[in-house]
């Protein structure tokens, strides 16, 4: 996965820096719920997770550490394989060899996925006032995001129905940033110590439909509530399992749709 896409994941988190901790809330493509019911995918390509990890630097900006990124990505991928196998949700299909041009095409689709998934969780989102959230409610009731049909070559190549996309970031506080947070707290300003975000999505390879997406966003506070450290296998597993528990979550989502 390219640096640009990894950085996008981090910047997406940056845009949420001042937000309160958001609870996981999955989205399900409306065609999986409407009659006649669309079947769930049975064979899914596990795309390499796009995780970026590093430190919250002294000035509050994010600074990537490549060794952390590598360790976090490996832990998340392992957690995904274990979690999917344990649940038997679908058969994992390995990513085939692709050309550089196909790699670029995949990157473009993943970047669009990130944009669409981010918008899905923000419109409507936890930060909206009640009236705005109500106005956007139809996007939950009839979620129809799609990246288009450009990934069908992967279905042709492998026979898979869908791809599992994983994007995320994990930024932990540097020592001096902790001091800044402490001083700010004494002055009455609450700053997060760190942040971890993980987004999963199952994308139909023929239509590009985002069949299912889920996201977890954590913000750390001083002295308590540390964020998940994806460099730690146990933390990565907990975070991934928490999201996979919502898959496919059709009944829960149908109930969410019907609550107005």
């Amino acid at each position: 996965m390219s640096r640009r896409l990894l950085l996008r994941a981090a910047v997406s988190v940056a845009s949420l820096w001042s937000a309160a901790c958001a609870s996981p809330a999955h989205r399900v493509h409306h065609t999986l719920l409407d009659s006649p019911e669309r079947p769930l995918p049975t064979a899914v390509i596990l795309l390499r997770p796009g995780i970026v990890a590093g430190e919250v630097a002294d000035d509050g900006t994010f600074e990537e550490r490549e060794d952390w990124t590598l360790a976090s990505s490996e832990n998340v991928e392992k957690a995904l394989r274990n979690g999917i196998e344990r649940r038997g949700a679908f058969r994992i299909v390995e990513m085939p060899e692709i050309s550089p041009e196909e790699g670029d095409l995949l990157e473009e689709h993943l970047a669009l996925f990130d944009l669409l998934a981010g918008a899905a969780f923000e419109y409507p989102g936890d930060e909206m006032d009640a009236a705005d959230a109500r106005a956007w409610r139809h996007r939950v009731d009839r979620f129809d995001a799609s990246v288009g049909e450009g990934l069908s070559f992967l279905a042709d190549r492998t026979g898979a129905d869908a791809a599992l996309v994983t994007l995320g970031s994990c930024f932990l506080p540097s020592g001096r940033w902790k001091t800044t947070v402490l001083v700010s707290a004494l002055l009455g300003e609450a700053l997060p110590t760190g942040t971890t975000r993980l987004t999963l999505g199952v994308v139909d390879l023929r239509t590009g439909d985002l069949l299912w997406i889920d996201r977890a966003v954590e913000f750390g506070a001083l002295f308590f509530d540390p964020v998940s450290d994806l460099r730690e296998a146990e933390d990565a597993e907990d975070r991934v399992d928490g999201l996979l528990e919502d898959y496919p979550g059709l009944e829960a989502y149908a109930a969410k749709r019907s609550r107005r």
Partner: protein
Amino acid sequence: MGRIARTASIALACLPACAGWSLVEDPAIAAPDGSFGFEAPVGWMRARGGDAEVLLTREGPPVQWFEVRALPADEAFPLLGEGVPLDATPAEIAALTITELSAGLDPIPLAVLERGPAAVGADEGFLVHGRYADELGVSFDLLAAGFARRNRFYRLLFRAPTLHIFDRDRFAFDRAVATFRPREDPEGQ
């Protein structure tokens, strides 16, 4: 080790202010002050904007963004600090619009794919089709159309990701351009 900074482009500059959302249920919509009207797609979302502007999106401003504004002609290009010159042709106004948009995107370059005269409703105006990549390399297509009439400059601006979304959603822009009508002011204002 890469340092990651928060950046903003013209296309997203309005995001923090967007609120007061409502669902478009009637395709015939107008600016709050009545300075113009056009047909918008039912099911899109409208944000509360200024008196002489209409702000629309389908899935959220980060995905597709459509804004229509009536600006005082002498303040038509605020980033350039210029207005519409007297007796300017549509081609000249298009050139100023491109410069204004480029200034808003700076340092991101705007590639102009197409520019030329175009009807905007019943008026003679211009159409510009551009493309740029955001700070992280995602390609967006941008359409701008407009015209000047008396002391007003009317501008329609639409942008969406090049991949899949732009082609799917540009009908909203095309329909708005085709149905655009400025308010007829008996006093010639």
